[in-house]
């Protein structure tokens, strides 16, 4: 039998079929993802699960032998985007990571998205800009009883005034896993205010898909 799955090398658009899985996304949101992440199924479940779980390894594991898997996942995701994205687009796009859940001063602060985006094409460098700053650490979404709404996330976001120029021509908001879409919507809101009229899309390594066994995740939705 051939292997169960491999990590997809082309982007899939969130259209009418997938959108209902992402509570806050609307038909006007232009979002793309590579793989599908199935929560709580562990590493062995799929290539995408393996990549995402390695990519999200927390910073307190640095120095352990497993750390090499985080770097590999980062390189794998970067290679997948390199393959999937048109180089003409990369030449003109500003890639904005959704800020990590921990503030920069937090020892658990993890800039994996920024590093992954830069690794898509090291030379000539891409316009990867941390325009959105998170003002205070928050618990990662899965550790919370209630998921934050986009407006609550916006309240914690700040635009970095030193990073506004040159004005982007087109922006991709980038995150590892698309869940409810709350963080994407929040980032969209603050970037639209900062750069009115500039086109915004969403790029995700994976989207979280519902799974049959455990429904608790959906109970968290408002």
């Amino acid at each position, binding site marked *: *039998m*051939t292997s169960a*799955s491999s990590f997809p090398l*082309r982007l899939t658009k969130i259209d009418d079929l997938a959108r209902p899985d992402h509570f806050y996304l609307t038909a006007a949101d232009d979002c793309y993802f590579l793989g599908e992440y199935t929560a709580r199924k562990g590493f062995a*479940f799929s290539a995408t699960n393996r990549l995402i779980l390695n990519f999200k390894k927390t910073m307190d594991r640095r120095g352990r032998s497993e750390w090499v898997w985080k770097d590999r996942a980062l390189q794998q995701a970067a290679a997948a985007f390199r393959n999937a*994205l*048109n180089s*003409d687009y990369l030449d003109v796009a500003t890639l904005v990571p959704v800020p990590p859940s921990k503030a920069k001063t937090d020892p658990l602060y993890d800039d994996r998205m920024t590093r992954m985006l830069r690794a898509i094409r090291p030379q000539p460098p891409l316009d990867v800009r941390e325009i959105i700053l998170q003002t205070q650490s928050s618990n990662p979404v899965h550790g919370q009883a209630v998921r934050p709404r986009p407006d609550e996330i916006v309240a914690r976001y700040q635009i970095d005034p030193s990073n506004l120029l040159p004005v982007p021509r087109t922006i991709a908001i980038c995150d590892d896993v698309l869940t409810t879409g709350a963080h994407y919507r929040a980032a969209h809101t603050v970037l639209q205010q900062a750069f009115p009229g500039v086109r915004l899309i969403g790029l995700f390594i994976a989207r979280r898909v519902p799974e*049959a066994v455990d429904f608790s995740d959906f109970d968290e939705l408002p």
Partner: protein
Amino acid sequence: MRASWSGTLGTIREINGEYGQGGGMTPELTLDGTDFESRAISPLQELGAYEALWDEPKTTFKTLAEKFAARPGAVPSDFVPAEKARERAAFVQEKFRSAEITRFGVRVHGAGDYPEKLRDAAHPIELLYYQGWWDLAASRCVAVVGTRKPSPDGIARTRRLVRELVKDNFTVVSGLAAGVDTAVHETTIACDGRTIAVIGTPLSHAYPRENAELQRRIARDFLLISQVPLRRYEAQDYRMNRLFFPERNVTMSALTEATIIVEAGETSGTLIQARAALQQGRKLLILDSCFRNPSISWPQKFADKGAIRVMDYDDIRQQLSPQTH
């Protein structure tokens, strides 16, 4: 209407229509899937293109597989004008809506998490429709199939077998046909197991009709899979549509690690799946009782080609994969 975006972004085109023609506002720019990145796909658009590929009366799963084999990396939308694909997708969405199918998905070869194991089929499918919980497709799956007109013994054996498989945490797969298939799904559900139905009709149709409720239940709580193009199915004669049933057996075999045949006549469609299983390198397990039936010769024929004669459930378990996660 499409126009080039008069910027430096030569490859990004404006798609008018839904957004672009509002008066006075900056037209919203939509990145065209074929331009924005190398090859982003929209599953909905692929579904429409897949349906359109079936417009051609000579299209079969074989001709489609050949078409795609000749162009590695291609997806249905590579062969169909975008407008046509949109139209067909809207047709399917509308039909499904009226059949009260509000949530469904597709899997497209070459994008997203398409199950690679389906490529082991002789004419692998490029797209499938599903309803329910896709993660079941990645669990340990065993198919249990058989005749539409089983003997009372056959039904009893089916139920015993399914109970054991559920106890061992297998997802039990069948085709939602009358007889053995129905017993498989019902028993799995009754003992709190997981089941997948791979059907020979579109998601919006049920055959036999008596199984419509069971099909809805599987779509809601488990996983329902169909490779049958809706528009073609509705446009053509029911006698032609019968050809979709054996095709789904080929897919069912590819989706599972083993096929177990409980009871089947000499000309049963079940034997299509038996042949496919061997061809695809899947285990084919045939209950001993089939061999003891003097009126049929297929069990020995398949045994000669590599099928395994199983005496009891311990025999079966030894042939199946151990639990890993």
